[in-house]
Structures are given as structure tokens and as C-alpha cells.
């Protein structure tokens, strides 16, 4: 942990994410206006001291909407990646530990899933079952576990040959015990990297879906749909598009930096 703080990339990423998490947590205290309250006397105002990031075409405060939107974006990211990681860890460890036919079947399934362009699959499924925050989280989760699966499988393939696994087996340990207690902890580092990278990706997908209008539905604010609503007035109100865009960029960047930092620390070749 201390080493993580000494790594400039991880530190920068960590600060960004900590800041975002705080914003999301303290949303009710930070927001200056009700994010859903229209105000016809204050339509499309530029950023000022009254409205930090200006107002939209219904007179809603963009700053407050973005603060609340951070909650949705982070939540969608966390839960979607959580689902993907759980699926990936389970399938990956089974695949890597048992090998043979089990491995072939799971890996071919992964290949099939990877053949389908994920984003269009998500689009199609959401179009079918209807957009809601819950649906989006689940659909992103169940379409993005393949990377984690391959990663965990690769780790297990090398770890299961290690002597301590043989020793635990010689002591009479059962397979599920070997998987959960003896092997999985060793794979934690790459899983963390994948988790962090996945978070940035999931937030990005959610924003893209909301931008296309089949993500988080108005009036619930998310960075993606603030961006969408802003695009109609982009020629007269730049702040409607620029700020949510920046927020997405910074968030994704933050997660990537953190992931890169963790990866660097866990790679023995880069250690001094």
C-alpha cells in the first residue's frame, strides 16, 4: 500500500478516484440546486457564481446534475464490473484448475462471446428488455467477463503446478479448498488491475448508452444523458457538453492510471 502511494501514476489515479467517490457520497451537500427542478427564468445560462457550470435548456443546474450523475455512473461501473469479475473468477478458476474438457468448453464459450461485438450486443439486449439502471448494470456485467476469465485461467494454469498445491493435496485438501484458499489469493493482483481497468470501461459504456438514449433514462441524471441533452444546443451553450465530457474523460483516465500503477507494482521485472 505504501509502495502504491509512491508510484506517481497510482497516486494521481487514486486521488482522482477518491475525489469522485467523495463527490458521489456527498452529493446532497455539494449540490447547489435540486438536480431535477426546472427553472424557466434561468434557461441556458453560462457558468457563473449562481450556477457554477451554467444551466440547461430547462433551466436545471448543470453542476448539481453532474454531482448526482456521478453517483449513477460510479454505481453502474462498480456493479457491472463486480458482476463481470465474479463470473470471470468463477469460470476462470474452474477452467484453469480442472483443465481438459472443462477448460476447452469454457474457453470456446469465451471465444464465442468475444466474437460478438460487445457494444452492439449490449445495444440489442437493452433494446429488447428495455433501459433501466438495473438492466444496464447487469447487461454490461454479463457481456464483459471474458477478459477476467482468461486472466484468471492463465494464472491458475501456472499456479496449480506449484509445489504448495501438491503439498496441500498431500495433506488431504479438497479441490474447492485448493482453489479458494491456496490459489486464488495469488491471482489477486492481476484481478485488481482488470477490475480497475474494467471500471473505466464500464463507465464509458454506460455514458455511450445514455448518449444514444437507451441508457439511464431522464429525468435521472447521468453524465451520458447530460451530454446527450447538451448536443442540441452545442452551438449556443458549450458548457452543456464540455463538462460531462470532461468528467467522463477524467474518470476513465483516473481508473486507467490506478490500474497501470498496480500493474507496475505487481510486475517483478519493473521492480527496482
Amino acid at each position, binding site marked *: 500500500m505504501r509502495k502504491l502511494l509512491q508510484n506517481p501514476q497510482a497516486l494521481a489515479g487514486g486521488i482522482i478516484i477518491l475525489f469522485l467517490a467523495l463527490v458521489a457520497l456527498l452529493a446532497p451537500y455539494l449540490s447547489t440546486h435540486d438536480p431535477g427542478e426546472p427553472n424557466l427564468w434561468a434557461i441556458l445560462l453560462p457558468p457563473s457564481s449562481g450556477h457554477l457550470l451554467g444551466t440547461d435548456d430547462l433551466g436545471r443546474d448543470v453542476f448539481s446534475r453532474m454531482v448526482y450523475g456521478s453517483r449513477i455512473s460510479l454505481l453502474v461501473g462498480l456493479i457491472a464490473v463486480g458482476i463481470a469479475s465474479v463470473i470471470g473468477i468463477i469460470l476462470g478458476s474452474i477452467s484453469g484448475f480442472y483443465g481438459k474438457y472443462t477448460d476447452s468448453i469454457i474457453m470456446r464459450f469465451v471465444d464465442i462471446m468475444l466474437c460478438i461485438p460487445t457494444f452492439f450486443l449490449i445495444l440489442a439486449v437493452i433494446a429488447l428488455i428495455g433501459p433501466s439502471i438495473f438492466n444496464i448494470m447487469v447487461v454490461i456485467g454479463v457481456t464483459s467477463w471474458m477478459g477476467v476469465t482468461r486472466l484468471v485461467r492463465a494464472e491458475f494454469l501456472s499456479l496449480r*503446478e*506449484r*509445489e*504448495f498445491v*501438491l*503439498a*496441500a*493435496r*498431500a*495433506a*488431504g*485438501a*479438497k479441490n474447492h*479448498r485448493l482453489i479458494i*484458499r*491456496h490459489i486464488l*489469493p*495469488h491471482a489477486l493482483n492481476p484481478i485488481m488491475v482488470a477490475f480497475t481497468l474494467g471500471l473505466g470501461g464500464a463507465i464509458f459504456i454506460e455514458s455511450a448508452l445514455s448518449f444514444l438514449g437507451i441508457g439511464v433514462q431522464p429525468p435521472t441524471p447521468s453524465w451520458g444523458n447530460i451530454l446527450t441533452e447538451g448536443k442540441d444546443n452545442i452551438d449556443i451553450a458549450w458548457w452543456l457538453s464540455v463538462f460531462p465530457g470532461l468528467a467522463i474523460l477524467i474518470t476513465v483516465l483516473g481508473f486507467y492510471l490506478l490500474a497501470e500503477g498496480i500493474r507496475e507494482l505487481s510486475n517483478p521485472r519493473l521492480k527496482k
Partner: protein
Amino acid sequence: MPVLLEVDNLQTHFFTPEGVIRAVDGISFDLSAGETLGLVGESGSGKTVTALSILRLVPPPGRIVEGKIEFAGQDLLKLTPSELRKIRGNRIAMVFQEPMSALNPVLTVGSQVLESVRLHQKVSRWEGRDKTVELFKLVGIPSPEIRFKAYPHQLSGGMRQRVMLAMALAGKPDLLLADEPTTALDVTIQAQVLDLLDKLKKNLGMSVLFITHDLGIIAEHADRVAICYAGKIVELAPVRELFARPAHPYSQGLINSIPKMFSGGKDLKLSALPGTVPDLKNLPPGCRFEPRCPRALPLCRKYDSEQKTIRPGHLAACINPLNQ
């Protein structure tokens, strides 16, 4: 003494793309309760694979293709996986050569020993903890309560091997498979661990299959010796008998390669066995030792010699044995 373990014509082969490696090719021996049998041989002579075969833990592409392993009246080769797990660690335990790689680096040594305790005894976490601390005391780990929370890398080699021993003893096994338990240790620690092993064996009444390439250790700590060569046992005899009157030229060669302290001023040169172990993928048609054997006869190239009783309790597989 009743026979505890009987291995009969065990054959464990590895099916690699380059061909079949006959790592263990017809090994037979028996082990009585409370006895220590030394299994001696060079690297690649099939010692470790024999031990792994007894626990049925031969890693793929290895497979036990033939033979019988009878332990306390049960044929181990016919047990189901769950029956096997009741034997592993509980009735037969194994100590590995390199404790650093046999201990899990991310778990504390205490929790690993505790796991072994709880795998075989229905005890609560707290009772198990007490038992673990007791085991640590038994194997001579100082301040066991503090060591409980240590990670493997924080302990010295000797301490790690003691932890391995504690893990192996957790199930109070009848048979301990010790696979070169002292090879990774320096000489003084080696002596400590060996004495400890002897003491534990006496107090707990275990049988030990002691695998090593060090005949010096065998001379002091084993009751009987089996000499392995290229997947076969070439000679099996009580320790004194083997050192006094070895029958197989290979055994003789091994004994000659031990440095002697009192050579009377002459013969100070150590004799080494010329040549290396044959390729296990294509073994010579006759005796496996023939290419290196100083006493080889023309016959040895054609026929592989069967094991014969030379004297009561002394078996050797040689057409032209020594000290007849």
C-alpha cells in the same frame, strides 16, 4: 512387526509427446510398522515418483500403469477420491524437499498447519489453534505463539522444514513419506531435523519412507535400504548388511563414493561412478546398469536380471553379484 505398506510391481510412466518415460518401472518393497526404509538413488531414479504414486498424486502426463499398493489392508489404487482424501495427510503424510516452495507464501504458517489439523479432526478454530501451537512445540519451534503468525519467507530454512513436519504430523499419520527432507538445509540444521525426525518416529510409532541420495544419512537413520537405479530397485537389504556386504555393483559404487574419514593414509581419492543414468525413454535391453558396470558380463547386455534373494532379507538384481 506387521507389514504396513506393500508395494508390488509398481509402474508409473509419463506419457510425453517425445515418448513414454518409465520413471518407475516395476518397484516392489514392503514396510513394517515402526520401520524406516531408506530409498536411495540418483536424481531421476524414480524415488520421488514412487512416493507420489503411493499418495496417488502423480502429476500428468504421469500415470500409474500397473502394480499394487497395499496400505493397512487397503489397495490404494482402487480407492475413490474421497476415500483417498481420508488417507492423505491423515494416515499417510508427506514432507517435501524444498519447504519454501511447499508452503504457500501468501498464508501464515500457523494457518497452514491449522488447516491440516482441521482437515482431519473435528475441532473448532480455537481448539485447532491450541493443537497447532502444540505441534509447533513438538517439532521444536521456539515461541510457537509468535511463529503462528509468521509468513514462510520470515522463517529460516530449518524452521520452515519444522513447519512442514508439523503439518505432516497434524493427522498423526502411520506412515511418513519424507522426500529428501534435509537436502535443502545446511549440515548442522540437517542433523537437528534428522534427530527430531528420529525422536518423533520413536515417540509416535510411525513408519518412515525416507527418500534421499545421501547414503550417509541412511546409514544412521534407516533400518533397511532400497537402492534405486533407473526406475528399479537394484538392491534391498538391512542397513548393516548393505554397507558390509553390498551385492550390486551400483551399491558398491555408491558406497565407494562416500568420503571416508579414516583411510589409513592411502586411497585418499574419492571414486566416482563413471557415466550417467540411462535415458528412461529408451532403456538398454539388458541390465540398466550394464553400460556403467565394472563387472558387466556379455550376458548382462542381453538379459535383465531378476531380483534374487542373496541372503535372508537381502535382495539384489544382478547376474554377477559381489561378496558372494
